[in-house]
């Protein structure tokens, strides 16, 4: 599947998870795209961990405000009804369970919902930022990721090998190949990308996938 189409499909599919009025935090990169594909009639408010609710679009050139960036250090705008606050309040919102959905990328995720997305020892150690609080605090954690890493190895594992961001917090995994739900029994394969077979998805997933006969094709 073409990289670009895969990313767009992931974003479009995740956007369908939102309910009108949801408070949502989108991680940097692919998750940011999700905001472009909201279904008709669904309005959400975006939380920006650096201190506001109501993140808007990127400002046009020349209209940047030096005091207004998003958490990824890009100039930002706010929508009507926005509110600014300090970092303690920002994480009161996060850790206190006031975020309905967070969408974030990952390096690895496993069958118990463990997430590893902030460190590769010796190689990439930028720090966890707000990710640990976010996945622990948000009511629903959606992982947006390519199904395979750039070497073609599965990212959905029996058990994460990298240091964890959090234990057992992933609720839904949306990839360019599949939509997978974490349940008490394990990972359930709910949907697969057009043109793929269940066998192909299973083969590309290290973790066992529960298939209960009703796998749909991803509709976006």
């Amino acid at each position, binding site marked *: 599947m073409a990289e670009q189409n895969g990313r767009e499909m992931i974003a479009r599919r995740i956007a369908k998870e939102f309910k*009108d*009025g949801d*408070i949502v935090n989108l991680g940097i990169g692919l998750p940011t795209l999700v905001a472009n594909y909201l279904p008709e009639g669904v*309005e959400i*408010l975006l*939380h920006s961990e650096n201190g*506001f*609710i*109501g993140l808007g679009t990127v400002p046009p050139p020349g209209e940047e405000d030096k005091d207004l960036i998003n958490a990824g250090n890009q100039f930002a705008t*706010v929508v*009507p*009804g*926005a*509110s*600014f*606050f300090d970092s*303690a*309040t920002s*994480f*009161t*919102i*996060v*850790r*206190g*369970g*006031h975020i309905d959905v967070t969408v974030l990328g990952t390096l690895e995720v496993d069958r118990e919902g463990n997430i590893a997305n902030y460190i590769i020892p010796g190689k990439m150690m930028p720090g966890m930022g707000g990710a640990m609080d976010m996945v*622990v*605090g948000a009511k629903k954690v959606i992982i947006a990721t390519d199904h395979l890493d750039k070497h073609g190895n599965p990212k959905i594992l029996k058990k994460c090998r990298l240091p964890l961001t959090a234990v057992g917090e992933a609720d839904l995994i949306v990839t360019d190949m599949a939509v997978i739900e974490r349940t008490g029994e394990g990972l359930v394969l709910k949907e697969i990308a057009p043109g793929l077979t269940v066998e192909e998805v299973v083969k590309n997933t290290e973790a066992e996938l529960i298939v209960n006969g009703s796998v749909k094709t991803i509709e976006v």
Partner: protein
Amino acid sequence: MNKVTTLENAMKRVTDGMTIMLGGFANVGTPELLVEAVVAKGVKDLTVVCLDAGLPGKGAGKLINARAIKKYITSHVGLNPEFSRQKCSEQPETVLVPQGTLAERIRAGGAGIGGFLTPTGVGTLVEEGKQKLTLNGKDYLLELPLKGDVALVKAYRADKAGNLVFRKSARNFNPLIATACEYVIVEAEQIEDVGVIDPDQVMLSGVFVDAIIQG
């Protein structure tokens, strides 16, 4: 999302036995209309969290007089002699909490904090039943978060998305209880269109608010 609704609608979420948090300090910043509506609904066996017991017949005092309360978590009941007069007979079980600890416990409830260590109350009756930790030679009590089902909040201005502005000493516990309850009802003196309130001047984000009624 327009969160402005009727008093009747907002009250649907208030039922017997629930935990209600109430804003106000000596009835300044108390949502009187919301309290009256709770009394009118006739709910019973409430656990109420409020800084004080109101003034006689005002604020929390109305709930006390209506015998709607089973348990009262508060810091000070001295301004309401009717509360003490009920003492022996129908008075609710009363838990007295230092004011700073009460504020912090409510904040912790709203902020996903599992507990905190405070030096307040060490060596006093407040210690009773609590875990005591010693860090760097200093004693602290482990105080636990407080959460509620419904918050009754008084605001000066609200926009329809629930962003709130409070006025002077009427702020007190109002923004705190809004973070700590499942369902947050605001009685606002002024209701504005979304976008009217400067986002920098919002004192409580609308993210915490569920319903707004005209005060």
